[in-house]
């Protein structure tokens, strides 16, 4: 065998060994990863443990914890705050209230208005909280805050961690109930973002991208400080797909739209099928402008433009423009060319 043939045979053998080794290693890796992925998938969440306890238990826990922790001696100013809240929560009717129910009512889930009780109480004086007065709710909030900020550290200096945990459990149960509400609210925010930005939401053209970019800095259009999306979006569109009847025949007209789109965040709106036609996920309204003689792909701003209004109800649109004889135009929400119209 020639030297060249020998080298070629050796190269083939080497490649074959390498390929075999790689194949074996890849197979082992794939199996390992697969087995691991299965084991991770099996790591299912445990059944949720209910939140138990009453406001009375929470008050007694705060009192006992403060005594055991020698809170009054160690931090007299902070203890005075705690004592004031305990006094404010002395009404007997509060004693048997479930911590879970109170915790869930804590933020009075009203979307973007969701806020700590202190703020709710300041804004609203009516019975937004069915279980307790706003003053009591604020006191409970403050009591949980002061207790959590100071008592665990002090308790663990005086008693074992287990004893401290037992003593302090009702305060933590209250915090847990409120955290669960907060989690639900985060998911609600994401549901709203999906409605406004997710699949199925109206696409924006270049002008709208620019306008809405600027509008992010204007309060009605920007997300709230704690992350609730605004239901509003600016509309500025050149729509060549309107249809109208003019001179006794159907014609395509181009309309310049400028207005505001309102996203309907209520879960009852934006469903599929006929329910979604009646209650769509978004509506829009604003100014409609057409060319003085109407027609397709005409510049609406040329000559004596005809002004009117448009209303978009989900995917369906209607516009009425004035002039010599008012015209009624209909269309559908559609973007024919990305970024353009």
């Amino acid at each position: 065998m020639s030297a060249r043939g020998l080298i070629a045979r050796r190269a083939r053998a080497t490649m074959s060994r390498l390929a075999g080794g790689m194949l074996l290693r890849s197979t082992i890796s794939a199996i390992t990863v697969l087995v691991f992925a299965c084991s991770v998938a099996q790591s299912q969440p445990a059944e949720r443990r209910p939140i138990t306890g009453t406001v009375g238990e929470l008050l007694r826990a705060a009192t006992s914890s403060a005594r055991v922790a020698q809170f009054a001696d160690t931090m007299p100013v902070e203890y005075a705050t705690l004592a004031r809240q305990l006094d404010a929560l002395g009404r007997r009717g509060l004693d048997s209230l479930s911590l879970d129910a109170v915790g869930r009512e804590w933020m009075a889930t009203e979307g973007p208005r969701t806020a700590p009780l202190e703020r709710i109480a300041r804004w609203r004086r009516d019975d937004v909280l069915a279980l307790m007065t706003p003053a009591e709710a604020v006191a409970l909030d403050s009591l949980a805050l002061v207790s959590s900020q100071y008592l665990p550290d002090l308790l663990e200096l005086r008693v074992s961690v287990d004893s401290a945990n037992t003593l302090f459990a009702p305060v933590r149960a209250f915090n847990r109930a409120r955290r669960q509400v907060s989690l639900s609210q985060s998911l609600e925010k994401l549901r709203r973002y999906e409605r406004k930005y997710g699949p199925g939401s109206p696409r924006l053209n270049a002008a709208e991208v620019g306008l809405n970019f600027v509008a992010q800095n204007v309060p009605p259009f920007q997300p709230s400080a704690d992350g609730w999306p605004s239901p509003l979006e600016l509309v500025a569109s050149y729509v060549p797909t309107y249809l109208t009847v003019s001179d006794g025949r159907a014609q395509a007209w181009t309309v310049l739209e400028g207005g505001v789109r309102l996203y309907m965040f209520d879960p009852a709106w934006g469903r599929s099928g006929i329910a979604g036609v009646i209650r769509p996920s978004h509506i829009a309204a604003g100014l409609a402008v057409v060319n003085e003689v109407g027609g397709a792909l005409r510049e609406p701003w040329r000559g004596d433009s005809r002004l009117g209004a448009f209303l978009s109800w989900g995917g369906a649109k209607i516009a009425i423009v004035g002039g010599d004889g008012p015209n009624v135009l209909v269309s559908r929400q559609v973007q024919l060319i990305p970024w353009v119209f």
Partner: protein
Amino acid sequence: MSFTPQSRSWSGKRAVLLVHGIGNSRPGDYAELLHALHSLLGDDRDSVAVYQLFYDHFNDWFTEKTNATELLESAVKSLADRIEDPELGRTVAEYIGDILWPVLSANARACVREAYLAQLKQIVDDGENADVSARQQQITIIAHSLGCFHTYETLHHAAKYSTHMLQPASHEVRFANVIFMASPVQLIRTVAERLGPLVPNRRWLETVQGESLFIPFETRTNGSEVQSVRNWISVTGDLDPVGGHFFRRQADWAYMNVPGQHSFIDKQYPTDVTNREELISRLKSSALNGAAPAISPSDPHSWQEYIARHTVDLKQWILV
């Protein structure tokens, strides 16, 4: 695609959250990374609940809604021209696409942050469900690349707003470790500062707040501060531009240097050959087999490589 935070059953008091970086990740990705993490935990792996945060589909919503590919490309060009520092201009051009969304869209930023917050609330609740109070929980976050930015934003937001019930003092949620791998937070801060008024809702972009980057904290009623993170760690490589290094030179404007952080800067190599002996061995092997030397270029930004280089550290941090 609605978002559901991952929920796990805890059999110990520890949890790890992995937050990926630039890319297009979906649930089910990073299986090899998870495997590496479980391997390094060894016998303790069953006592650590591992979570992953996937957020790319939110970015997809915004990209599709605005047909943004063209917008991003033009923005990249305009920015590269505008920034006088050629080094910065080049870096911006490379990574701008993934970074632009959260900086330029207040909604995109808020949306990803909310998903992150939801995941953190779920983790804490899972722990409490297993009778491990928030105070006793040992939660470690390992973030890579852009995931570091979202981590920085989210932790600051959580410490600031009580409605999330994740504050370190009032709600006893203090993270045991937050490990930033190849963090672009300082780079984003620099870019955002140079973009000036182009950045919407600047007051809610935590990355640009303060005199410099800082560890999030809550101020108690008596004025004392409690930090959200016990152990703030930054790991980067000396060839990783996202982590603020350009050809082994650290750039102050790009390297995240938070007061109080523990810093690790890995020695990296352009190829997978890391020393002279290894090079000789591979060349010999190549000569014997009659094949080309088996030398591959290395990826200085690889998350898996960062994990592999710090298996011992990670085990120690997570299990401390």
